[in-house]
């Protein structure tokens, strides 16, 4: 009982705040995020990455498949800042082009799982009963299979390639979104403003999309930010074992895998793509943590 009351209070506060200060809730989130230095650091790195991905054609010094078999295994030098790989390709350029693939996989895979999982969770939570049971038990089945194993089997069935990797990684994390959305829908479903919407004759679709989803956005955003990191890592893992993105596309995981066989003689081939993966995941995690703090109503002063 008391729990429900505090929850109500919080939402009341939340809804009343913007009215008082005339500030959208997203602006408050932004304000508190801005105070968090490590989250801003993460955000800046991700913005740089997005910039790299968008302008790869202009900022990369070479093409990603410009082989020069005479200039293999060059250690970092002024012409090739990150050195060259076993086919004489510029590693810096490949890392830059690789950001494209990684971000694409990260965002689209998360998009797939967020929309499918979100929709399923919302339906399950809102209608409850049999529908809830069927959907959530199916999610339990998916959860019972380890994510990377599921992704491997999906890719093995569909065949390797960018598109299939995104689908495979996306499907694997559907259940977590379904659960999060269902949980918040359950807590919102019976509140007065939903009742009010029902009273004025809004249909279920409108209630779910206009009233329930926006109010359960916070945990989804946090999960999605961290999920992008997970998706990039899974895609890199799939590529590492040869099931992911196919050559000559410069995928970080695949580059790491190629570098592995030369690790003892040419350290730079595996090091730079490895660092790229590490920094990206680190930045996404910092941002995700920051967002969680900023979106958590309990931490509001």
């Amino acid at each position: 009982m008391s729990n429900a009351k505090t929850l109500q209070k919080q939402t009341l506060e939340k809804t009343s705040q913007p009215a008082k200060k005339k500030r959208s809730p997203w602006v408050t989130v932004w304000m508190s995020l801005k105070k968090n230095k490590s989250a801003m650091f993460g955000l800046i790195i991700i913005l740089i990455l997005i910039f790299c991905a968008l302008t790869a054609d202009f900022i990369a010094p070479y093409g990603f498949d410009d082989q020069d078999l005479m200039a293999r295994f060059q250690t970092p030098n002024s012409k090739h800042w990150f050195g060259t790989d076993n086919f004489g390709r510029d590693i810096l350029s490949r890392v830059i082009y690789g950001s494209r693939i990684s971000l694409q996989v990260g965002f689209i895979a998360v998009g797939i799982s967020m929309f499918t999982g979100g929709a399923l969770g919302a339906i399950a939570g809102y209608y409850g009963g049999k529908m809830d049971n069927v959907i959530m038990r199916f999610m339990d089945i998916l959860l019972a299979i380890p994510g990377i194993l599921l992704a491997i089997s999906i890719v093995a069935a569909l065949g390797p390639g960018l598109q299939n990797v995104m689908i495979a990684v996306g499907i694997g994390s559907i259940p977590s979104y379904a659960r999060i959305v269902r949980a918040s829908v359950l807590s919102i479903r019976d509140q007065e403003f939903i009742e009010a919407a029902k009273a004025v004759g809004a249909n279920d679709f409108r209630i779910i999309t206009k009233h329930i989803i926006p109010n359960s956005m916070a945990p989804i955003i946090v999960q999605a930010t961290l999920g992008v990191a997970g998706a990039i890592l899974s895609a890199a893992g799939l590529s590492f074992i040869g099931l992911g993105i196919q050559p000559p596309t410069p995928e970080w995981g695949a580059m790491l895998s190629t570098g592995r066989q030369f690790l003892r003689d040419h350290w730079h081939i595996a090091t730079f793509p490895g660092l790229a993966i590490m920094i990206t995941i680190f930045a996404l995690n910092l941002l995700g943590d920051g967002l969680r703090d900023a979106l958590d109503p309990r931490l509001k002063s």
Partner: protein
Amino acid sequence: MKINKKLLTLVSLMLVLVLVAVGCGKTTDAPSTGDTGASTKDTVIVAQNSDAKSLDLHATNDNASSRVSKQIYETLVSQNEKMEIKEGLATSWVAIDDLTYEFKLKEGVKFHNGEELTANDVKFTLTRALESSHVAHIVDAIDAEGIEVVDNYTVRIATKEPFAPILAHLAHSAAGILNEKAVTEAGEDYGQKPVGTGPFMLDKWNTGDSIELARFADYHGTAPKIEKIVFRNIAEGTSRTIGLETGDLDIIYDVAPTDVSRIEGDDNLQLLRDDAISTTYVSFNLNKAPFNDVRVRQAINYAVNMDLIVEAVYQGVGKPAKGPLPASVWGSNQDLQPYGHDVEKAKELMKEAGLENGFKTTIWTNDNQQRMDIAEILQNQLKDIGIEVEVKVMEWGAYLDGTAAGEHDMFILGWGTVTGDPNYGLYPLFHTSAHGAAGNRSFFSNPRVDELLDKGKVTIDPSEREKYYLEAQQIIRDEAPWIFTWDREELSGLRSNVKGFVHHPAGHHALWTVYFE
């Protein structure tokens, strides 16, 4: 005085510490060199890149299995390191007529199960081999009706038509002699319970990890000095090298090109390299357009810089191939004119073929690092003449099935002329009757080549045979069903205390001569 005392204790404490550290260092060092037990060491640990599939000679014909079964089985005749025919289980043989050979078997040869070798086992083995889809191609010249048991130690083997390389085929490791009783008793499980006459018998098989062989006490030949062989399955080339460096392994097969200089530079290790009799090639599906056009095939040959590719991928191991047969095989034509790297010429030919704008195609390869690398470089170089290539890495089984069924466009594969005879290296790969699974996965067909290969097969006179094969290779070069790629080199790494190990060109090395020093 006081200070002196303190200093003394400090120095003595440090000395003790140093001594302890040195002592520890020595004890940890000792096992890693692996030399301490040299006098008592009687187990040789060999690493190869995959586990054997089956030790039933007729159930598979892959390299990993043959390397193990070579120690277990023996053949009627054998081939030495120069691929010359020597005696095996048969002590003598004579050609009775154009078709038939008579073999005298060695008496008193025991199988691992205690049975004695008789002519019946030979007949049983060859009849069974002829029914096997995996090895029938090795013995299919033999007429099943023509295997005749004269007495317990005499057997006659007839071919359907005169077949020059019959002895080389009987020396193939897949033609090893099985024991009839052991095969019937084991039934379906025979692949896990092999019984041969060889110097070693199967002791334990940890599927996917290792195979342990033990010395066979009743072996009819010279007893090996080592008591045990352990075959370890280590897929990664680098891991095999590290295992050799740390002393966990005594012999490693198929050293990765990147590790060659590392092994050469290590005093505790030795590198053994010999020309092998297998070749790697890039080929096309001639049943499919545009590869049915010889101009397109030639254009691709001109467009790729194969010498550079081989240098980049194999890093000085092996040689760029000059023809369909590796240089070490008798009758190989090493005077073929190489296409060379000439993009202009390639573009011209593409234009003549009406494809100046190029086309899209795929190239298949199996999960073999070097072949995948070749595919990736080809993809890059073929862009120069407008050909867009998609690289498809396939699982081995699916790869073989797909190429046999002709579903592919371009592909990369290897072939070992394990009998050392040009018939084995050309007939299955270029004869019209061998389309598909038998080996001709390019679906190449040329009446003159067919005729020459047929003649070479039935002619006994070596110089005449050589003439046919040289001409056939010239036509194959001009018709360009292949891009000749790479002649393999047999590369093994050994600990320096390992002696008596010699490469066999066919890739299945004898281990019973190995000992430690």
